[in-house]
Structure formats: structure tokens, C-alpha cells
């Protein structure tokens, strides 16, 4: 089984050095990319069916195709790496950032070439201080080695790459809010259209890609689209960093073929549930996805299959709910986070997530009423996709709406018994 993204990860936890990275074939993808036209690279990546690993699963090559190319295109153009990993339960990019920073730099450089960009930014979660230090070092190495700078690999193409540390808001992970934050403005999302490919950073064509997405690019360029599709167990190409947290025996992170079934992840890789607990459900892709139940465990963890099962692959890092944990408290914890991280722009989100959090708290504290349950139901509809300005609130209410559907009796017991039965 191939693990292109994590094969070089060192056992001692230190970052892969430039020399090590080069020895393992590093920057071969970039060299190859520079010999091809940006449009051809886009076609290759599109053919490889690399779908965005930030959670939306949009075809990366297709995304690039909306960027104006050629002599008449506006400049400077930008590529931005979204490394603002802050979703509860999600810790996959951190590994790539800390363990193999050159892989990301190479991927970002390839993406930059693919849209004829001039400047690249790595927008990193501020709390990822180890990653920041390692990226800084790697960037310096890459500049010194000529992979970045005024004349990338003597191709005549100039690429400047900067590391930017986020001031620490979940909403900065929303790509347009990220761009506003990068411009020094409030991290409110922007209306789309226009999309960043047309009017992004400082109003110029921009693509924003997740860390894991970018890290796949060197390998696609080095090995080709067919290879990339061949290492997957799904029509979505490539491998995926899957994770598991919760009361499983071995919480962790694994690079596996895209489309690995949830059951295999849970039982083989995470080692099944801890003694004394049994499985009730899981959020497949971080906190902002719908619950899957025991009957869904055979779902192949790729973008389309998880969707068919009523949830989303999201970031592919599952949070497992067990029978010893109160699902209401579980959801309350998540909703409190999302309410706190609402940027305050659109009414359903700032008012609704707050209300939902208050209702969940009331349930947890034994003050809940049937009206609170009705309010929770209402908020899930009020914050549905299309009714809010961005995807934060629709994502935020996914665990809530599925918990209300799947664990209804637990919610009602809180009201009936005027207490949390788990306390």
C-alpha cells in the first residue's frame, strides 16, 4: 500500500530535511511541472480527480480552470495554502506541516505554476508554533536552493512564498474570510460570486487550497494521474489522511487509500472501542458533519459515498461517540464552539448558533423544556445551506440535526428527567 504523503515521516518526530526530501525524490514534481504548460498541469490534476481535502471535495484541477491564464490575465495572482486547521477533532494537516514541510512547499509551488501565480501564502493556524518554526526553516532552505525566489529552478519564473500566522479564528478557515484576514481586514466571509479565482486576494485571481490537497500535487506530477487513481479504492484519486478520536483504543491518524470503509478505520486502525464502551455513532469528517450510525459503518469513506449515507467526508477525521458519553453534552460542546466562532455577519448564524447553544446548555443543566427542543429543531432549518452567508452555520448544525434525528430519545430524557442522565 502506497503512502506518498507520509512515507518520509521520521520516527523521531523531527521535520524531514531538504536533503532527505530531495533524496526521496522531492521537488521532482516541481521540475516536471515547470516543463509543462500550466493548462496541461491543470488537466493532469483534473484527470487525477484530486478532490479538495479541506472538506468540500471540489475537483482541484477544475477549480484552477476558472483562473484567467495568459498574457491578458491580471497580476499579481496568488495561491494560498489554507493551513488554518481548527475544526474540532481534525488534526491531519498538522502532521503534514510538522513532519514534511518541503512537501507542502513543493505542492504550493506547483499550484502556483499551474495558475501562473506570482505570490504564495501559507496561512497557518497561529497555535501551530512547531509547524511555523519548521516551515520558516524549510522556506529558507527552499529559497537558498532556488526552489523559490526570483528565478525558480532557473526557469525565469518568479515565485515569492510567505508564511502568515493566523490571529486565531475558526472562520479564517473559510477561504474568503481567510483572504480578508490575510488582507488585514475582519475575517468575514465574502459573497460569491465573484469567486476567488476571479477576484481573490487584493481583488486578484487567487486559489486557496488545503494543506493535504497541495501535498498530493508533487506526487501526481511525479507519478501521473493514472498512478494517483490507482492508489485509491474509490473514484476519488489518491490516499487520504484518516483520523479517529473519541473512546477508541488507538486514537490516531493514518494515510490510507481513499475510500477505505469506516468500519476498517474504526476496528482495524483505531482498534475498536475501548473496554466498557460501545459504539453509538461517529462524525466522519470533523465536527461539522452529520452523525453516522452503526448501520452506516460499511460506508466507503470518500466524498460521494459518505454523502449518500447522509453525511459528509469533510476532513476525514472521525469523532466517535460512545454509549458512556451524553450525546446532548457532546453536541453542546460542539455548538458552543461554533457559536463562539461565528463571525457575527449573518443573522441566522450569530443569533441561531447562540440560541442553540443556550438551549443545549439548558438541557444539560436540567432546565430544558419541550420549547428548547423545538428551538433546536427550528435552528437546524433556520441555518440550512443557502440561508446563511457562508457554510459555517450549515456545517455547525449538521451534528445537531442528525443527533436530534438519531438520538431523539436522549434529548427527550433530559427534558423528562430534568437532568442529564449521564451525570
Amino acid at each position, binding site marked *: 500500500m502506497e503512502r506518498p504523503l507520509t512515507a518520509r515521516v521520521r520516527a523521531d518526530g523531527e521535520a524531514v530535511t531538504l536533503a532527505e526530501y530531495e533524496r526521496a525524490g522531492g521537488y521532482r514534481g516541481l521540475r516536471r511541472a515547470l516543463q509543462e504548460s500550466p493548462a496541461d498541469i491543470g488537466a493532469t490534476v483534473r484527470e487525477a480527480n484530486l478532490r479538495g481535502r479541506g472538506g468540500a471535495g471540489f475537483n482541484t484541477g477544475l477549480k484552477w480552470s476558472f483562473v484567467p491564464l495568459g498574457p491578458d490575465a491580471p497580476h499579481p495572482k496568488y495561491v494560498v495554502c489554507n493551513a488554518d486547521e481548527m475544526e474540532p477533532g481534525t488534526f491531519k494537516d498538522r502532521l503534514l506541516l510538522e513532519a514534511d514541510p518541503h512537501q507542502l512547499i513543493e505542492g504550493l509551488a506547483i499550484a502556483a505554476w499551474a495558475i501562473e501565480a506570482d505570490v504564495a501564502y501559507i496561512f497557518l493556524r497561529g497555535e501551530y508554533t512547531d509547524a511555523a518554526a519548521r516551515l520558516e526553516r524549510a522556506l529558507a532552505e527552499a529559497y537558498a536552493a532556488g526552489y523559490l525566489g526570483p528565478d525558480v529552478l532557473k526557469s525565469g519564473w518568479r515565485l515569492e512564498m510567505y508564511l502568515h500566522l493566523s490571529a486565531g479564528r475558526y472562520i479564517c478557515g473559510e477561504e474568503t474570510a481567510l483572504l480578508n484576514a490575510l488582507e488585514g481586514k475582519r475575517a468575514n466571509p*465574502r459573497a460569491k460570486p*465573484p469567486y476567488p479565482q476571479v477576484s481573490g486576494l487584493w481583488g486578484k485571481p487567487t486559489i486557496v487550497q488545503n494543506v493535504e490537497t497541495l501535498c498530493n500535487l508533487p506526487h501526481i506530477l511525479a507519478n501521473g494521474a493514472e498512478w494517483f487513481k490507482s492508489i485509491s479504492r474509490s473514484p476519488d484519486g489518491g490516499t487520504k489522511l484518516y483520523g479517529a478520536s473519541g473512546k477508541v483504543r488507538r486514537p490516531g491518524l493514518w494515510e490510507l487509500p481513499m475510500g477505505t470503509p469506516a468500519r476498517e478505520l474504526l476496528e482495524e486502525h483505531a482498534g475498536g472501542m475501548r473496554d466498557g464502551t460501545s459504539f453509538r455513532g461517529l462524525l466522519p469528517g470533523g465536527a461539522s458533519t452529520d452523525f453516522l450510525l452503526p448501520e452506516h459503518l460499511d460506508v466507503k469513506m470518500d466524498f460521494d459515498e459518505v454523502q449518500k449515507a447522509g453525511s459528509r467526508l469533510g476532513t476525514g477525521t472521525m469523532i466517535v461517540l460512545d454509549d458512556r458519553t451524553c450525546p446532548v453534552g457532546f453536541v453542546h460542546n460542539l455548538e458552543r464552539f461554533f457559536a463562539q*466562532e*461565528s463571525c457575527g455577519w*449573518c*443573522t441566522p448564524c450569530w443569533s441561531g448558533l447562540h440560541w442553540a447553544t443556550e438551549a443545549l446548555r439548558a438541557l444539560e443543566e436540567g432546565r430544558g423544556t419541550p420549547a428548547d427542543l423545538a*428551538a433546536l429543531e*427550528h435552528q437546524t432549518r433556520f441555518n440550512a445551506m443557502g*440561508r446563511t452567508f457562508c457554510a459555517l452555520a450549515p456545517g455547525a448544525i449538521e451534528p445537531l440535526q442528525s443527533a436530534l434525528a438519531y438520538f431523539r430519545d436522549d434529548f427527550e430524557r433530559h427534558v423528562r428527567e430534568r437532568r442529564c442522565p449521564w451525570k
Partner: protein
Amino acid sequence: MARIHVDGRAYEVDPSRNLLDACLSHGLDLPYFCWHPAMGSVGACRQCAVKQFRDEHDAKGRIVMACMTPASDGTRISIADAEAAAFRASVIEGLMESHPHDCPVCDEGGECHLQDMTVMTGHTLRRYPYSKRTFRNQYLGPFIAHEMNRCIQCYRCVRFYRDYAGGHDLDVFGIRNGVYFGRAEDGVLESEFSGNLVDLCPTGVFTDLTLGVRYTRKWDLQTAPSICMQCSLGCNITAEERYGSLRRIVNRYHRDVNGHFICDRGRFSHGFVNSPGRIREALVRRDGGLVAVPPGEALQQAAALLSGRRVIGLGSPRASLEANFALRALVGPDHFYQGVPDAQGRLVGLMLDILRQGPVRTPAPAEVEEADAVLVIGEDFAATGVRMALSLRQAVRRPGFELAARMKVPLWQDAAVRELQQELRGPLFILSTCPTGLDDVAEVTQRAAPQDLARLAYAVGRRLDERVAGPADLPEPLAALASSMADTLARARRPLVVSGASSGSAEVIEAAAAVASALQARGAAASLVFLAPEANSVGLTLLGPRPFGEAARLAGEGGVDAVVVLENDLSWRFAPGEGQALLGGADLVVVDHLQNDTTAGAAVVLPSATFAEADGTVVSSEGRAQRFFQVFVPGAPIQESWRWLRDLGRASERGDAMAWEGLDAVLEALAAEIPALAGARDAAPGAGFRIAGQRVPRMPHRFSGRTAIGAHLSVHEPKPPDDPDSPLAFSMEGAPIDPPAALVPRFWAPGWNSIQALNKYQEEINGPLRGGPAGVRLIEPTRGDALYVGDVPPPFEPPRRPGDDFYLVAAGQVFGSDELSQRADPIAGRMHAPFVALGAEDASAAKWEPGVEVDVELGARVLRLPVAIWPGLPRGVAALPVGLGALRGLGLPAWGRLRLR
């Protein structure tokens, strides 16, 4: 045009608009908060949700935000759809989670957009049972109260204050349901447009403190359409009264003049009407003092002073056309003089000559926003013609609009357009002596003495057209600058040149005209703005008064026995005592409304009505004659100046023709006598105008205070006063809707109690008001070929001994440079202490630190003032903030001396 379907009905709409705009334009009710007609859409509040259907077979549809969806052809939406309606009610419910529901004690109550929209959505039952978030409020200065708990996070305030008006000190802080709109710390809001927050805020976060100190609900305010008197732009306002005091000014939309916004000087200066300094009795001089007498007695005394004697009249740029014309009729055209210094009178005359001859047209103030290149010469609009500074700020955004159009981003997508635009600005060149409030968006800010401004402008003109006489010896960097500005202006399709009287320099005016004319000669649709000094400077000048200097000469020769002074404080315009001295020992009969030095020296004072207590017509800088209407009847014996003058004419048997009973008769006589002003008659419908036999009511239909105040004396309702001068009634009875634009007494429509009811009065969103134009343009150019007047002045020579001789120039002030507004409390509170400003070079040569006190010698006057340092001020030039303290009647620009005490 496109065709859209709303709830099964087809509507013709403009496809470049969004659905909310299109629906409101067709009179449909759809609630909204964050969208604003002047500021476009950002999609934050989600209040205007509608159901959109793919086609006629789509029964399911999906919820979209009307403000964020283009009104493209074939669009099918439903406002009435149950799911959309329920969603809109939910939005209100969400917005109101932490709203304090303090409507009974909230100044916004009764004219609150949040109340209106809540009722419109049908949300009635509060379900949110938890604690509300609360905030600490801030002190924001004397104009605006702050009550953040009421905030519904629509972001309109910061979008206006920062994005639209270029302010910096109001911002948005915090996140989630705790977003805070305020300053970093308590303090006076700096923007001269802060008052618009009152109109913009959909609820009671920002309310008008000048109303709040003596509060009245909107439904208890008697209102009339009016014109702002605090500068010459002629912004349309609504003036509002209760119990004999003027309580508030709000914006009155006029598409071509002020749009949705006015400045703080205009909004917050109404206090002078209620001032304790008002003259409320007729006064005559007796035993060396002025004593109150019955008006008939005062008239007799005044008539005695005029009868059979050599009488002249002094007109006023702050009095109406009618009042000035009445004075002219009383004293005769040959004895009618302008009550302003000759230099200023000549300047306004020159401006008018240029505009009337052409070839360049002067635009309506709102048209300024269409300019694609702007040259400002010698005028700080942010201080003197404040509203126009806001328009110029929009003009420089045009390249962003063009970029957006190329990128197919609709212009109403406000955030997206600004994102594309970034710092891209259209060319704005500011040639001025002092720093200006628009420097932050200018491509070029060049400081020079007025003579050098004119020389630089002439050089620009020369580059554009060889027929312009250019300065021969302009230093190379300036010549290069002139060429580069000229080349940019030459590329513009709609270049604009703006200047005004503030520099006090005819050369500046002539040079501005030369540039505009040269641009026009090259085929551009050029336009030219001249800012006149006061509200009716243009009207007064069009009446053809003789120059003041002639009156002074005549008086000096002993040829004047009595002077009738109309609404004019000579000490404001002339050095102390100089005005009266010029008039020798003649007896003064003064008609005015505020006590001042001139009334103090009068033989007879007749108490006149302010703009709020009179009807009249003023002519703006644009040459637009506009009517202001009496808001309330002042206590006797106060009456309109023209009525006093008419009565004086009758009593003194001078004005044979002054048999006027109403304003229309005055206007008829005016039109007959002065053809250039004939259009003033049509500025608004005459007194006989009726809608279905009814007048337009000044009181709203909910007016409740008719009898309460006097109920302890009598519960009978007094008969409303008659109004022989206008078609408005002092009553709540009358034609309830759709008066002609010039007669709209307030914006109020069923279900729309706030000023946002405007959309029910417009032909379409951002279109003109229904019912015909308001105001009449009196000035259009008469010739098409280029016109170049004036000569290139010699360069300014700084004195050899810096720190001693200085060329003193006027620096206009938003608060303080206007005579009447500075008599209003909150304005007085915003005025700086007087100072003299000089450039860094001169200050350092003289070794003067900021704050050091110097004597400014100007002619015979000595003014002791602290020094301020304005780094860019040219060498040898010092600026005086005119209007502050004793800095009045200075006759600037002029040479003077600065000496350390």
C-alpha cells in the same frame, strides 16, 4: 428591461439591479436591513429572503436573498411563499434575541425601521428565554447618542462611516452575537457626516441628541420641506417643530442634490432658531438703549426714519430672494446694495458670469459623482461645501465601477466591488493653500498660495488648449506636474473642475474656468462647479445689487440718511465697527432674527422669521432655485422679512407696488421685474395648489399633541393658523399621500414609519421623487465656444523676512465658518479655539513652537492667537480659521504681520 415574475405577476425591471431593489421600485413590501439604496448589498442580515423558482414548472423553489440576486430576465420569485415568509419572521426573531425591547423609552420608537420590519414580517411572540448580551455605551460627542444594546448587527453604520464617507474612528469590534459598533474609546465622532448614522441605523443605536435633549416622537412633530441654509449647496432637508421650537433636521432626499445624506453642520445647527439670542420683539432706540415696543409703533418709527430721506438697503446672502426683492422694492433698485464686501461680491459675480456665459455647464451636485477626473482648485469642500466632499469621494471610485463592470460584478455588490477596487482611485487633483479633507483620496495634493494655484491651473489649461495664456516661468517640477494633470484630464470623458469663493481669489476662479473651458474645447463633457459663500449668495447677486463700496462712499460723503439692513450682521462680514463706520452716521433699520452687533447699533429692529418660520426661495451654487417652507408660525410679532419690508413700505409710503398679500405675489413681481429669476416662481407649487381640493398637511396623521399642552386652560382645539403663502396646512388634515416632490413634508407611508419610507415616494429606487422636479435650474450656459477670461497672475513672492510678514488666507471650518450655525449649542461645542496656522518651514525659521502666542496684525486690527503648524502650508503664508472667535470680517486674503509678544 427585463421581465421578472413576483407571486405570479409580471414586472418590467432593470436587469442591472437586484431583486430587492426591483421589488421596492415596484412598490412591493419586502423587509431589509443591511441593504441601503446608496450603499448596495452585502447579504448580511438575510431579511429580504424570497423563494426563487427555476421556471414555471418548479414548485419547490429555494430561498435566496433578494438583495444578492440579480433581477435578470425570466426570474421567478415569491415574496408570499410560506417558507420564505416564515424564514423572514425567524430572522427578526433572531435579530431581536438581545434587543432590549425598550421601544417606549427609545428615541427611535415610532420611526424605527426595526419596528416596521418586525410588523411587516408578522413576528409577534418572543420565544428566546435566555439572558441577553449587553454592552457599555460610549460618549460620541454632542450630536449623537449611543445605545448599543439595541444593535441588530446590520453593519450599515460602519459601511457608511468608513467605506462610504472615509471616516476612521468608528469601527466594528468583536464577533458572534457580540459585535460592537463604536470607537476604540469614548470620544467625539470625527466625521463631518456622522449625523447620517441617525438616518442609517435601522434602530435606536445612533440617535439624534439635538432632538433627544427635548424629545418628541415623530408623530408629534410638525414638519415642512426645507432647504439647508448652512452653505450654498442647497441640500434638501425636512425641518421639524413642536411647541414653537425647531427640534430636528433630517435629510430630505433629492436625487440631483443631496441624495440620502447631509453633513453635520446642516443637520445639527437648527438650535439657532430656538436661541435665547433670538429677537422676539420689535425694538426701538430710546435713551441710548433698545426697548421693546408694539410692532405698529416700531413700524411708525422706522417709517419716520425713511420718509422723505435718502435711504439705501443692504441685502443679504442669507436672506431669501423674496426678502431681498422686497428690500429692493422698498428702497428702489438704484439704492439696493449687496451687504457683502466688494471683493466677495465681485467674486460671486465673476463666477456667475462665467457659468451663465459658458461654455461649460455647472452640474447638479449629485452629478459630481459621475466625474471621471477631478481638479479641485483652492477650495476645501470638506469644510465649506461639505456635502459635495462626500460626492467627490464617490467620484474617485469610478475606475472601480468600471473594473467591476468588466469583471461582470454588479455594482450593487458593494463588498465585491470594493474588493476588486482595493486602492484603485480615479484622478483627483487638489490644488489648495491649506490641507483639505479630501487629501486622503487625492492623487495629487499641491499646496501653494492662491496666485500660484492659479498659475499652476493656467499651465494645465495651456497644455490642454494653446489659446489659454500659460505662465511663462513656471519651475520645471510644477510644469511637469501641470502637464501630467492636463494629460490625465484630457483622457477623461467627464472631467470636472471645482473651485469656489473660499480662496478669495478671482485669479483662481478664472484659471479654473480656463481649464474647464479648455477641456470642453477638446470635446469632453466637462463640468465646472463654483461654490458660492452662502445659501443665497447666487440669488442675491442675480437680483443685481450695487456694490457695497459704492454705498460706503455715498455714506462717507454724507449722502445717506438711513439704511435698511436685511438679515445681515455687518460685523460678521466686515471688521469690527467697519461696517457701520462705512455707513457713516446713518440711521439703521435692521430686520433680523438674532441679536448681533448690527442690531445692537440699530435705531429700529424688526424681528424677522428664520428659515423655519418663513417661506422663501434661495438659489444654490448650482443656480437651482429651491423653496423652503414655513415649519411653524412664530410668536407675534415675528414675521417674514419680506412682510416687514412690505409693511414698512406701506407705512412709509415708499413701496407703492408692495401690495403683496402672499408669497406668490412677491414672486410674480420678482419674475416680472427680473427675468433671470423668473424661474424661481416654479421652484415649488404656489399657494393655490391643491390635491383633490386639499392642502398638504404639515402634521402627520398620528399627530396627538394638538390639545394636550393647553388642556389645563381649554380642551377646545384652536383653529389652525391660515397659510396664505403655501399649499401646506398647519393641520393633520389634508391630502395624505403623494404631494409634488417640492412639497413632501416628511417621508412616511403605511407600514413605513421611518425615513426609509422614502422608497414609497420615489419613481424607483435611487430615482427622482414622484410628482415632478423640485427646484428649478436658473443657470445654463449660453455659448458653445471656448471662453477665456482673466490673466495669469505674477507668482507669489514670499516675504524676505520670514516670521514677520505673512500672506494671510482663510481656512474654512465645518463648525464655525458659518454665521448662523455657530449660534447653535452643539455646533459651538464642536468649534476649535481660534489659532493662526503656518507652515513648518516658517515656524522653524521663526523658532515658534505650536501653541506659542503671537500677535496677528491685519490692517489696524491686532489679534492674539496661538500658533498651529500645518506642515504643507507654503512659505510666507499663514492661515486663519475664519469664523472662530474674533476671526471674522477679516477680508482675506490679505498681507499681515505676525509678531511674537
